[in-house]
């Protein structure tokens, strides 16, 4: 069975337009489990230069919760431009590594909008 998207596409323009940030696109994203009660979902957006966290309650609201833009540091670059993952045990904690962190892993608290710690893989500290 073969299908072709271009033959069946029926695009619906719901957003008036927006200039995509081609200089620093989102290269990876991670979605948290919904919060108990509110159903809030946290979405982390990893770019090469920064991490953004979006709070979403489906059908109710969405907002840019916080951003983290590390001071570009020396050291080795990660293979991927950026990567991120939510903690599965503590809500709001996200791990982020990118070129801007020099390959270091940043533990970021999205609920408090602050860095908890930065770990250098190469040295183990």
């Amino acid at each position: 069975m073969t299908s072709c998207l271009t033959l069946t596409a029926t695009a619906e323009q719901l957003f008036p337009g927006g200039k995509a940030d081609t200089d620093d696109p989102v290269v990876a994203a991670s979605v948290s489990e919904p919060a108990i009660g509110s159903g809030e979902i946290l979405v982390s957006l990893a770019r090469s230069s920064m991490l953004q966290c979006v709070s979403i309650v489906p059908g109710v609201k969405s907002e840019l919760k916080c951003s983290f833009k590390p001071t570009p540091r020396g050291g080795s670059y990660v293979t991927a431009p950026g990567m991120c993952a939510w903690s599965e045990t503590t809500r709001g904690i996200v791990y982020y590594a990118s070129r801007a962190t020099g390959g270091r892993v940043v533990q970021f608290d999205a609920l408090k909008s602050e860095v908890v710690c930065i770990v250098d893989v190469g040295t183990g500290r």
Partner: protein
Amino acid sequence: MCTSLCVGSDGSVYVGDSRGSVWRSSLQTGVNNANDVINAKSNSTPPSLVKCADALPDNEAVTIVNALPGGRLFVGGARRARVWINELAAGGWEEVGELELDGAVVAANFDASTRANLRAKHTSPDTEPWGVVTTSAGSAWLVEIATGTARALAQAHPLDVANSSVKSLGSRVALATCSVDGTARVWDCDSGAKVLEVHADASTRTRATRAVIAPDGTKVCIGCGDGGVGVVGVGGGVGGAAPGVQGPVRHAKAHPSGAAVVHAVFLNHGPLLTVAADGSVAVTNVASGAFLFIFFNGQLV
């Protein structure tokens, strides 16, 4: 340098580096409430990562690290993958097995429901889960974690497999793959047969960038390079019939900016959440193709 990252179900962070080592940090363990966070901040000594093992030989960079149940780690590299187990009694990590592959590991899927399904079909009751690994050579492999053995499933694509998704599909297990050439395909893991193919069209940017299977196994959703989402129904082969496509591909413009979809995930067996390269986030009701809302740069639109 960090080349791969995952978070285990116990909260530990596993980091693969460019020299083939895997590191583990239990940073999360002591940070369960506000006081712990404050304590963590007030501690001048930064948390450390502990090396689990030199997981791959010859300083081969880790391309994928995946924490599995039972204290196991799946570690993928340029031409091989290894499974390691944390032997708590011995206090260290031991290699379970090595898989020789035909390219770099680009994706490894060990879905819980799929594990149960595949275990029942392909392994004896006392063996451990299977997963599906795809490589930069375009091939897909069924991997038995316990023994470190692999069976070639299919030459999924002529070029690199960019990402993949595995789900139970009725009585079978389906693998959705997406290649760097923009082609998405769905495979029946039992027979190795191709169920669905969506061609790339480079001229219109409707290349597939992500392919995910709905939790109930009835649909395959494809994120596209033009910000669209394609949805197609897939039959599960009920009554012994071969799985197949049901109905046409429905295409919804999830990201009107036209930025490519870079991430797609189903929310609690419901709508599909997609993230585009411009940072816009869309939630699409794949049952009807209608949008719940779109978020872009901090505004609800």
